């Protein structure tokens, strides 16, 4: 059994009258690709914001490698090994792709490494080496998403939170992204993936957590989750496609 890299117990987040995260527990096994799904507004991004420290918890506790994250600022959490690719790509527009990634290489996990080598490796894994010297402004959605991943893994994390990295991608690009995430996991990085595309998420994830209206409604292997009646109801009763073989 894998050890747990990230765990949450009774995690709660209130926004002025709205409960965006409602008593959620989770355990992410190290080395896995873990899924997080749920309808729009279910609280997926909020959960990631709680893990990265962008929001403070209203209640509960999150532990990373056994250490409570309470009171630890965002930048420190990254240096501890938590990286994130944003749902809405946030490149540094005036900097080149290489410079964008270099920021992660320089400020991520504090250790003696050759920053340029880290950058090159991140460029290679995500397959954007050919545009390394272009400024990030004006890149296509597909490339920006890869840049998000490249920059995040340049910080040398042990956990990558990927918030809908396939949103807005065409089928070819989606497949590229899925392969890219597999490569990331191949580097020993645990991936926690938010994804709407059921086919993608069930094909790539070892286990999946399903939330609806802030509450955990199911957890298990892709096969368990798609056959779970709660999940089917949450998705408006629409039958869910069988996981790809």
């Amino acid at each position: 059994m894998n050890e747990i890299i990230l765990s949450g117990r009774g995690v709660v987040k209130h926004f002025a009258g709205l409960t965006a995260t409602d008593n959620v527990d989770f355990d992410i096994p190290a080395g896995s690709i873990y899924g997080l799904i749920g309808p729009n507004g279910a609280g997926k991004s909020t959960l990631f914001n709680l893990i990265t420290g962008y929001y403070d918890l209203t209640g509960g506790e999150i532990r990373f490698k056994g250490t409570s994250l309470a009171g630890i600022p965002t930048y420190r959490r990254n240096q501890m090994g938590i990286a994130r690719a944003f749902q809405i790509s946030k490149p540094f527009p005036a900097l080149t792709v290489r410079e964008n990634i270099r920021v992660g290489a320089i400020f991520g996990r504090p250790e003696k490494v050759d920053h340029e080598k880290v950058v090159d490796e991140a460029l290679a894994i995500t397959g954007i080496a050919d545009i390394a010297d272009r400024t990030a402004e004006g890149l296509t959605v597909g490339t920006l998403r890869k840049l998000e991943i490249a920059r995040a893994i340049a910080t040398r994390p042990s956990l990558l939170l990927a918030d809908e990295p396939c949103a807005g991608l065409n089928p070819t690009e989606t497949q590229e992204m899925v392969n890219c995430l597999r490569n990331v996991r191949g580097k020993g990085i645990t991936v926690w993936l938010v994804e709407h595309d059921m086919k993608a998420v069930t094909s790539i994830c070892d286990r999946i957590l399903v939330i609806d209206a802030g509450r955990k409604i199911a957890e298990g292997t892709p096969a368990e989750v798609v056959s779970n009646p709660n999940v089917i109801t949450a998705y408006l009763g629409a039958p869910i496609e069988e996981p790809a073989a």
Partner: protein
Amino acid sequence: MNRSLALLLGLAAIVVIAVLPVWIGPFYTRVAQLFFFSAALAIAWNILGGFSGYWSFGHTVFIGMGAFAAAHFVTQIGPIGSGPFSMVLPILFAGLLCGLFALVIAYPILRLRGIYFAIAMLGVGQVIGELVNNIRWFQGGVGVFLAAPAPGGMPPEDFFYYIFAALLVACLIISVVVRNSRFGYALLAVREDEDTAMMLGVATERYKILAFVLSATLVGILGAVYGYSVGYFTTYTVFRLDFSLNMIVFCLIGGIGTLFGPVIGTAVMLFLTQVLLSRFLDIHLLITGALVVAIILLVPGGILGALKQKFAGRAAVRKSVEA
């Protein structure tokens, strides 16, 4: 640029600067002095505003605070050392005080982003100016003296010409070092997207505060020297909105966030206002204003931005031809 070439150019520049006052006479020496002072201010402003994107609309607060700090240091403690060296401690005290003041207000004020920070700094400038003006002890209303101890025989305009030239070089070097360091990279990341920077391990808070304190210290030192150079000043001589605005405008014109943009912008604007338009004093502000609007509209990246684009464009064309 080639390293030895840069060194050679730098040396040549120093020689030219050194002998210039003899050739150009007192009036243009004063214009040059104003240029060095203004360019150094713009560089100091640019370290915060240009690199990290936190535009301060009230940086004159550090000019005023620096000048009054030096004057009160001299009256309270007395000049220490003789001749020009008696300026050293008051000036350092001024820089230190401004840096400390920046450190104290940094925590609340740097949490404000964008225009809110800019306006808050405008307010800080206003409030401190009024305090210095109205609290009798500061003597901002009646004014204070700060004697200029030029070495024997040297005209004061030459003396301050050299001091401001040295300060400009110092600010430029500091700015270059900052820009090429880890610190500089952090500031750029903050400017581009603060939330992302945090998520990439950048201790944004710490670097922002550092940039603010450094910028304030440099402006405080420049303000103290400015106080010496005018010899007598009141609140309104040193707490001046046009100082604050000039720093921004010069950077914008030359290329905000670039290393040499602030210098180029200052040179261009001072040449226009002090040299070309000095004969049309009555309409000079009007023309200056119109020019600023025109440049901002025509070349939003400033002069350096426009040049860079032009060369980048050419390079791209060459590449596509070769391909």
